[in-house]
């Protein structure tokens, strides 16, 4: 087994004066994709933002390759080893190429090298022909591809994905999920993937966390959780009928 890349211990978060995330342990190995699944308001995004060092922690520590964030590792240094993609593409003014190269530019990499590194990623995501287009003129799917490219070009050690497909239409969404699954298989990074779509989770994730009301209810392979939910609440969240009243949870819409 490879070593643990990302290790969070007893991480909790307080937002707007109330605890939105109870102390949670979390770990991810290189090459592993971990899903965070749960209903709206479960604290999925909060957990992701906390792990990404984008929210102040109420308690706990986050360590990347054994270096504790805030102690051995400055926030800026941490952010230069990770990448994040959110539900909205959040592209900045300028062309697609400018956006995709932005993280590299912030790291002081010269223009020539930026171009060389961005091109294969643009091609992988099928947006090389859009490189010189203004980011404001892209469709939702194209913009989210650009946002993914902007993250992948950095070769992050941990890639954080916060419902990156939620705002897209179904066909675009399905295509991108499969493409991303292929891309992630070739990467050596750990990926943390927040979703409220169990199909996406089972396609992309090796392991899944079921989150509800700020607490982890169950952890395991997606199929395993669907087949054997540990509690009635987990069964309800993943929509499987094995625990709780079988009669009403037949799965038919």
């Amino acid at each position, binding site marked *: 087994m490879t070593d643990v890349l990302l290790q969070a211990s007893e991480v909790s978060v307080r937002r707007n004066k109330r605890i939105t995330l109870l102390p949670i342990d979390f770990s991810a190995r290189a090459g592993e994709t971990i899903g965070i699944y749960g209903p709206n308001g479960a604290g999925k995004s909060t957990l992701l*933002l906390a792990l990404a060092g984008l929210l102040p922690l109420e308690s706990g520590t986050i360590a990347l390759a054994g270096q504790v964030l805030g102690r051995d590792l400055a926030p800026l240094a941490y*952010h230069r080893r990770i990448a994040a993609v*959110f539900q909205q593409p959040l592209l*900045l003014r300028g062309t697609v190429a400018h956006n995709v190269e932005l993280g590299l530019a912030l*790291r002081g990499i010269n223009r020539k090298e930026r171009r060389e590194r961005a091109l294969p990623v643009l091609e992988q995501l099928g947006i090389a022909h859009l490189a010189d287009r203004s980011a404001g003129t892209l469709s939702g799917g194209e913009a989210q591809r650009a946002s993914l490219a902007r993250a992948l070009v950095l070769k992050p050690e941990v890639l954080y994905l916060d419902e990156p497909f939620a705002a897209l239409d179904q066909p675009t969404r399905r295509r991108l999920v499969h493409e991303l699954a292929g891309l992630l298989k070739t990467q050596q990074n750990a990926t943390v993937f927040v979703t409220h779509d169990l199909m996406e989770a089972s396609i992309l994730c090796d392991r899944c966390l079921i989150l509800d009301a700020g607490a982890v209810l169950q952890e395991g392979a997606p199929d395993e959780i669907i087949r054997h939910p540990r509690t009635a609440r987990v069964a309800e969240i993943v929509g499987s009928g094995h625990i709780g009243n079988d009669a009403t949870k037949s799965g038919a819409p």
Partner: protein
Amino acid sequence: MGLGSWDYWAEIGQGFIDAVLLLVTGDPETWGIIRQSLYISVSATVVSMLFGVPAGFWIAYSRFRGRGLLLAICNTGFGLPPVVVGLVLSILLLRHGPLGYLNLRFTPYAMMVGQFVLSMPIVVNLTVVALQQLDPKLRMQIKALGASRLQTLWLLSREIRLPLLVAYMAGFGAVVSEVGASQMLGGNLPGSTRVLTTAIVMETGMGHYDRAMAYGIVLLLLVAIVVGFLTWLQHGGGRR
């Protein structure tokens, strides 16, 4: 007496023609005043951008006690009476006052300070409003891309560059047409602190309507350019 006598309108008309002549013939006194007006107001608003934009970021993005009060003060600053600013700064700049040692009173620099104080709240306020209209996740995204504080400031400023331009123009428009503080702090000294607005007051008082009108035309043109530009921006003129 209704619309006034023929002589009255003839004199006003002659004044207008003389005003245009003063402008087009490059009358040194007229153009000197225009130059001084631009110099003082552009300097003051540039400095208020240098301080006001970072201050706007600070107010928009940090949480501290008294933040609401500071925002309220900036809102009030929109309606800050120039004469009151002139009065307070005049007192501070009096020879025996706390800032008297600077010897700034009746210099262009005193006027710049006054105009800086008047335009600063406008710049801060419009910066805060512009930042509040951005997607709150955008700042997280920029941070997650590995941007330092300074890089974040730069990238977000680029995102709100049009509102920042509006802030500059609004600040400039307010101070270039203001007379109270300029009169009190500058004293309308020829070749130094005489600007368009103080000159209009003086020339009108002395009955030199041609010169007063020449300055009035320039001032109107300046303000029209500012307002026209802002209107153009509001209608999406500068979008991509």
